[in-house]
């Protein structure tokens, strides 16, 4: 509890300060300075976790909120394709935790959580410290299933980047693209559903094509997909044809896109029982995904790969007291995106604040907006509004959808301007 609320309390109940302090001394281990506001620990400082920490303090200023995140600087996955295309620099997608601490009163701890004990409500960290929580918000993003396809392991990511968590992997892939000779082949293996950022692989192909068109126009981009269709497909393919001719080739599962094995040493993928191979100059293997490692380790995904939650509060269906938000959660029709994580964080923060105040949770309403650049001046978007219905977040019928197929260049350009505006707006909402 802060001094402010203690004063309020004393005034309200109208009893002597000395007696109260004596009483507190008994009640609170460690003395009167220990907070009596609830302690909420947030694990993970990405779009979900940072938003949750900020909005918990916004909704309940007297709550103690601790955010645990290993990195001092966080690079957003959204925007990282722009770096690959040479349209943005790493600094443009870097976020820090200064404002969360100085403006919003969140205690930010640079550490990583190694263990969660749901029964004792404690977390342990790599540095050896341990803390208890009244509520835990877990936003650990994704982890990779390198065991899904033989011939490639997590260690190979140093040579065959996934670049699906932004940072060093983004820089590595960019360097490989820069080093590739003109006329080379960039092969991307897109992940199977569900995965982080459904339009991401196709925006990536667009941005790499934007770079190739300027720097090495004889090069080729091949997307190997285990799907038969993908997000904003019509808009992407029309944009590719318009700007890049036949530079980008999308290979669906039925035409050899289902990669069955990787020959990592030779940067070659194998499909169709060995009858189809693709040899890459730069190989970008994006593995199938699971909930973040700490969520899996804590058993929050049960027998599956993602964490089931009560979608009204995002509290785990498996371990009460833990709210799982963002990519790791099963969130009905909401895609795994930074925007979804941001909105889910607000739902969870409101539910926690209300519950600690003795109030029932509200029926949530959330939205998702996702912009993709095909060129720096040609963007497309998909949007949706979700409400809680029959136990899950469901899209509101008649709302949302993708950019119109027949929009003029001026609308595509307007959406490109809003793409940057969206980035600045949402990162301000999360880390500002």
């Amino acid at each position: 509890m802060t001094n402010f609320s203690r004063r309020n309390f004393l005034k309200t109940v109208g009893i002597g300060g000395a007696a109260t302090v004596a009483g507190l001394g008994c009640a609170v281990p460690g003395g009167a300075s220990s907070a009596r506001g609830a302690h909420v620990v947030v694990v993970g400082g990405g779009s979900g976790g940072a938003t949750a920490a900020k909005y918990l303090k916004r909704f309940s200023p007297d709550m103690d909120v601790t955010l645990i995140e290993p990195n001092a600087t966080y690079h957003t996955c959204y925007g990282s394709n722009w770096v690959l295309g040479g349209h943005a620099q790493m600094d443009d997608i870097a976020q820090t935790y200064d404002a969360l601490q100085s403006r919003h009163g969140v205690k930010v701890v640079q550490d990583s959580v190694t263990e969660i004990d749901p029964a004792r409500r404690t977390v342990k960290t790599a540095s050896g410290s341990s803390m208890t929580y009244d509520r835990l918000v877990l936003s650990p993003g994704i982890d990779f299933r390198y065991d899904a396809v033989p011939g490639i392991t997590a260690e190979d990511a140093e040579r065959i980047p996934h670049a699906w968590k932004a940072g060093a992997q983004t820089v590595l892939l960019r360097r490989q693209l820069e080093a590739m000779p003109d006329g080379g082949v960039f092969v991307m293996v897109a992940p199977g559903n569900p995965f982080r950022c459904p339009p991401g692989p196709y925006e990536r192909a667009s941005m790499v094509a934007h770079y190739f068109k300027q720097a090495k126009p004889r090069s080729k981009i091949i997307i190997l997909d285990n799907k038969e269709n993908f997000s904003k497909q019509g808009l992407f393919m029309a944009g590719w044809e318009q700007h890049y001719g036949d530079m980008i080739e999308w290979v669906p599962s039925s035409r050899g896109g289902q990669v069955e094995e990787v020959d990592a040493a030779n940067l070659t993928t194998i499909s169709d029982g060995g009858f189809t191979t693709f040899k890459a100059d730069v190989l970008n293997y994006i593995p199938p995904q699971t909930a973040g490692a700490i969520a899996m380790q804590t058993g929050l995904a049960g027998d599956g790969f993602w964490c089931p939650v009560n979608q009204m509060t995002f509290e785990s269906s498996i371990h009460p007291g833990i709210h799982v938000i963002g990519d790791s959660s099963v969130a009905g029709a909401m895609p795994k995106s930074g925007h979804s994580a941001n909105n889910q964080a607000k739902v969870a923060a409101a539910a926690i604040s209300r519950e600690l105040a003795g109030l029932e949770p509200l029926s949530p309403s959330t939205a998702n907006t996702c912009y993709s650049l095909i060129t720096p001046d040609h963007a497309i978007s998909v949007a949706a509004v979700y409400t809680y219905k029959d136990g899950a977040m469901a899209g509101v019928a008649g709302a949302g959808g993708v950019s119109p197929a027949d929009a003029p260049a001026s609308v595509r350009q307007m959406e490109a301007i809003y793409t940057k505006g969206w980035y600045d707006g949402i990162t301000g909402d999360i880390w500002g």
Partner: protein
Amino acid sequence: MKRSRILAAGIAVSMMTMALAPQAAEVERGAVLTTSCFACHSIDTTGNMPNLVGYPRDLLVSQMQAFKDGSRPGTIMNRLAKGYSDEEIVLIADHFATIQ
């Protein structure tokens, strides 16, 4: 000792209620609903979407209705506005009008 423990526990519970109760008013439906808008319409004046902090209530209602019925063209708000009921639009407008 026993008595003081009970007293202390009672105080702790009261204090928690006191500390949190004044905030509960802010975590009402309109406030939570509107936080969804903040993702693009930042209240920290970042980004290039229109700043809606303190926006006139009736104007926000009429513009949302115009996006919803298609009479005001848009790139994305025309798609999003259709996801909100008339009641929700009023709740959002009320909340934007009150924040500073």
